[in-house]
């Protein structure tokens, strides 16, 4: 269970003179929830785009299981077991909820075009099985009742969950979640937490980018902290919480503000 699933070695990316990601190395261990955190503009989303293949790395190497995937196009990465969601939800708005999930199954639906055209029994069986599997996934994320709704008509939190269901449809080994809790209300966030824990229990490895420290601290097995495109800390949540560099770069202002507020409250007359 402790074998590395994804390894990044010296990954870098610059856009002109701007260095978005600078020689980043880390290892995602099989079966864990790994979080990448950092202040705004730290390079988290660029790093995610590099891992999913949408943005090519300028330097460095990516390895997935035992295979180098640095130059692999995004659709191939999806096929070998890397799925992702987006920070700014990118479901297919004009498709139904179920059709979105079925589209996510692209890497595992294998019937050739001629078989689809002739509507051969094998093609019908595959489609029927896919629908069943899609409904099961929707049940898992709690969208079973809305299967035939237009995806764009879902509430914000439901659209996030649909995106997760769609990413799971490819039966990934590694699921990349880009700020899954962004814009969610507290109830939705709690629901998301238990869903992600359930996915880990099923054996899925999760790599998530988060802005919200509170959300990842309770959830993650390991945290990598980025600042200005560089890794400034990497370790278990407890160690990250005490790391002076992290506090300075990330928690500094926030913690100071909270401590000040608490002190003010304690000192004030009841």
């Amino acid at each position, binding site marked *: 269970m402790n074998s590395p699933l994804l390894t990044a070695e010296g990954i870098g990316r610059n856009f002109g003179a701007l260095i978005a990601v600078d020689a980043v190395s880390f290892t995602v261990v099989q079966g864990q929830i790994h979080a990448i955190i950092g202040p705004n503009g730290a390079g988290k989303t660029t790093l995610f785009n590099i891992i999913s293949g949408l943005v090519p790395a300028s330097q460095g190497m990516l390895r997935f299981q035992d295979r180098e995937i640095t130059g692999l196009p995004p*659709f191939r*990465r*999806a096929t070998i077991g890397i*799925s992702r969601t987006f920070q700014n939800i990118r479901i297919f708005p004009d498709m*139904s909820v179920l059709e979105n999930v079925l*589209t996510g199954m692209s890497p595992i639906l294998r019937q050739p075009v001629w078989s689809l055209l002739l509507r051969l029994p094998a093609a019908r069986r595959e489609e029927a099985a896919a629908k069943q599997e899609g409904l099961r996934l929707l049940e898992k994320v709690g969208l079973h009742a809305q299967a035939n709704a237009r995806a764009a008509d879902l509430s914000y939190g439901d659209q996030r969950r649909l995106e997760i269901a769609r990413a799971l449809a*490819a039966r990934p080994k590694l699921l990349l979640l880009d700020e899954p809790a962004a814009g969610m209300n507290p109830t939705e966030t709690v629901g998301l937490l238990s869903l992600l824990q359930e996915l880990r229990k099923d054996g899925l490895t999760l790599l998530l980018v988060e802005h919200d420290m509170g959300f990842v601290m309770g959830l993650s097995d390991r945290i990598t902290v980025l600042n200005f495109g560089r890794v400034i800390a990497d370790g278990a949540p407890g160690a990250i919480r005490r790391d002076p560099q992290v506090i300075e770069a990330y928690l500094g202002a926030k913690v100071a503000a909270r401590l000040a507020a608490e002190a003010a409250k304690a000192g004030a007359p009841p």
Partner: protein
Amino acid sequence: MWEMLDDLFYAYQDLFYGLGVNAILALSMYAVVSLGQLSLGQAAFMGIGAYVGAVVTVKLGLPFGLSLTAAMIAPAIVAALVGIPTLRLTGVYLAIATIGLGEVLRILYLNSDYLGGALGFSGIPEKANGWIIYGLLALILSGFLIITRSRVGRACEAIRQDEDAARVMGINVTLYKMTGLILSAALAGLGGALNAHFSSFISPGEFGFETAVAILSYAVLGGVATPLGPVIGAFLLTALPELLRSLHEFRGIFNGLIIVLVMIFLPKGLLGWRVRRTG
């Protein structure tokens, strides 16, 4: 009575055939537009099909079936050559490249004595008939209708709505676009050859920019949600000028006016509803 119907059919035969051929051309546009691409090369591909088909029938004396087959393969090869460098680029680049192709070919036809030059290619036997045209249209349309409700249809819709999301979902977007363009060229070539084999005469001017825009407008008017959209669009825009014959030169205004009105009030086309994408 029968004689009258016969006369009527004879008078409108070309319109009847034209409706079917234009519907096939509209479906050739659908193969590209349903992937969110824009091609203005349908007329050029149609022209290749028309000339190749005419040469195979008239100059080589081969059977009509072979002529239609050649008329599909030739533009498909040209589409592959045009597609390789342009499909990596997005949006209007394909459209611009395909306009260029149309111009190059037009000048080529004009200056080729073998193809009849500016006078056109005449004496093509009228081998196409209603059965062949509408049979092929039915075959192509049902193929499209079946495929839009399969994983392939969902992938096309996904590419049209969000290309990057489709990519990370394991969809080989480049392969889809390439296949779409090649299929589209083959169908346009078929339309061109059928057209040549009922009008018996083709000339370089028929396959220019104006025709390309007309074919695009079939798809725009009908909408690309379902393959029925472009077919209906083609029927309407082909029949309309005939129905408005009394307006003489002004009838062209109506085609433009209808497109403007549809764009304003029905931006997804006449048949712009959401269709099921599960089989």
